[in-house]
């Protein structure tokens, strides 16, 4: 998973672009699975939102269509199979509401969750992001 030290972030959003390029081959931060939130003027900081691969992922539990699942590695994946388990664009965007880290996103009706590809950290100029095995980070530690 991607561990983020938000205190180091300066809000350039290069990570958002790298993510959209890696996963969709386009420049579009709205298709990114990592997002930078600006909190100015108070408290005057940036907060990085990216999947923390929770032990009991609330996004998976919240999906009314059973379209999200968690792999053994901890990675959350979106299922799109013939049994009808697929993101059917629920109106309330249940996964985004359920995620305690604000790290589940929606683009025009499709859920976006971090694929753990690591494209984002290669372009971060401040060393905000590192790729770690999920056991390293506890849920409490990441939530600011």
């Amino acid at each position: 998973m991607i561990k983020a030290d938000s205190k180091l972030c300066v809000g350039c959003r290069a990570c958002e672009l790298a993510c959209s390029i890696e996963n969709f081959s386009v420049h579009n931060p709205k298709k990114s699975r990592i997002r930078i939130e600006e909190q100015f003027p108070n408290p005057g900081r940036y907060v990085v939102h990216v999947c923390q691969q929770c032990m009991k992922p609330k996004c998976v539990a919240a999906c009314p269509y059973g379209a999200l699942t968690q792999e053994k590695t901890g990675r959350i994946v979106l299922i799109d199979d013939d049994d009808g388990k697929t993101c059917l664009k629920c109106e309330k965007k249940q996964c985004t509401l359920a995620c305690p880290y604000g790290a589940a996103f929606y683009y025009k009706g499709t859920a976006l969750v971090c694929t753990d590809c690591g494209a984002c950290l290669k372009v971060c100029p401040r060393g905000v992001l590192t790729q770690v095995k999920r056991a390293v980070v506890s849920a409490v530690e990441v939530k600011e």
Partner: protein
Amino acid sequence: MVVLPYGKILRIDLSRSDDTLSHSTYEPIHEEFAKKYLGGRGFGARILFDEVPAKTDPLSPENKLIIATGPLNGLLIPGAGKASFITKSPANGGWADSSIGGHFGTEMRYAGIDVIILEHAARKPSVLVIDDEKVKLIDGSKYWGKGSLETELELKKDLGHDFRIVTIGPAGEKFVTFSCITGDYGRNAGRCGVGAVMGSKNLKAIAIRGSKDIKVHDAKKVRALTEEIIAMFLKNPNLKVWQNYGTMTTVPWAQAAGCMSVRNFSTGIFEHADSIDEKSMREQVAIADRSCFGCPMSCGKFSESKKHGTRIEGPEYETTALLGANCGISSMDDIVHANYLCDELGIDTISAGNIVGFVMECFEKGIITKEEIDGIEANFGNSEAAFELIRKMALKEGVGELLSKGVRAVAAKWGKGSEKFAMQVKNLEWSGYESRGAPGMALSYGTADVGAHHNRAWVIAYEIAQGDKRYSPEGKAEKVIELQHIRPMFDQLGCCRLQWVELGLDLNYYPKFVNAVTGWDFTLADLLKSSERIYNLTRAFNVREGFGRKDDYVPERVLTEPLTEGPAKGHFVSREVYEKLLDHYYELRGWDKNGVPTLKKLEELGLADVAKKIGAE
């Protein structure tokens, strides 16, 4: 043919608003046009020249406000987050452009728009909202009269936090000739009074949100080039310096070279420079670093004035030099607060600090009395006086009515020799470099299309590095022209220049990026030819308004008063030297003795139609 990665031109007639702006049109950007003008300032120059006729009143509905960004903006390219505001200047009736960093231009690109042309004026105070292809005008009366920053925060609450917003403050509403357009809580298109033009269109703010893809010819190539640059930057020791201090390391550099703006440019050395340097900024006021879109340098510093309880992005060098040293103010905390006041009220920190410094010199010299300036004890170093003058000029209260017209107008009114030290060119206030020990910089200020702004050609850095040769006019006209052609290129592409200036990024990366996104086969020389075209086009715009050699002046102080201290002690740029430099500059540029581009030059640049319109020979 339309070419990647360009978006569209959105043209909006604000006066015909039926709220839904259904008459707005999207115009394609054709490849031929794109190749000739590239984007940003280039597109703006051509459109303004074609669509705003000579003698148009800048504050009339007939003037247009163009927001233009470039083909690299919004892409994974270091510093590609700039947009330009282009219009006819309310300060002097000539060409005006001012660029903004942050994330606004980028959001335009994600909404599929490269250029917004705002025509006529809204019937009542309004806010323009662009949400991808949904374009509408909403009632702006509840925001009218409020500060720039306050308005941005309220609009985010009202519309959604993912909107990118630019606003004007009360100064823009009141047509102050140096009012700015502000976004991202403290980024500014600060110069040339672009805020007044927005105010004249009854437009308090523009909010934009985009969710579209920007498609490019070769995305993999763009990413590979950027990863290469970031890896290179991470090894560059200057990157850390920039991330920590931004432009503020210019304070000790300018102090050492004796070229800081001090007490209305009466000297180039500030005895309290240590109190307002990069370390003071970092230790006393900075609370966070901020980057523009896609930039690894994060020169933006978010600061707090503890004394006044205000927060703002800044101060950077220019603000510190003008609102600090130029007013004799040595408290970092007070500079942050003055910066906040300017941003919230909506005026340019450079012009504001220049004018306050001028008032202070006039006051100390007895050219004006306390009574004439509303009872303010305007001594150098009096921060409270500076705050009060800033407030008055932005709100046009009392003496502020006069101050709001710019330093040239103030000197014309007060007279008694004050014209000699009114530091301006073309009624744009001189920015933070004392230039008596740098003839090239004087020429750069004098010939800049917008007036006395350093970013057209920051030749002083080159001059100081020359040692004693800095005082010689030799080779300076050549250098000014070289830089005046490099710098528009960045504004055309929608990029910041600091990656090149400060981290030494090879300019040859830019044609590589342009080719990767468009599929063209441009060289650096091709890009620079285009920016030469732009420099001639904005010159032609000014010529058509009656500008010429008479407007390429520098203040008397630069020409006649020797510096009394510092490394450049005894130096000034004599009138004879300046006039010779100007002759040489015109000759090298292919302009006549009056500074008018020749027919031959304009034809060579593919601007024969422009030559005809200005009667070039």
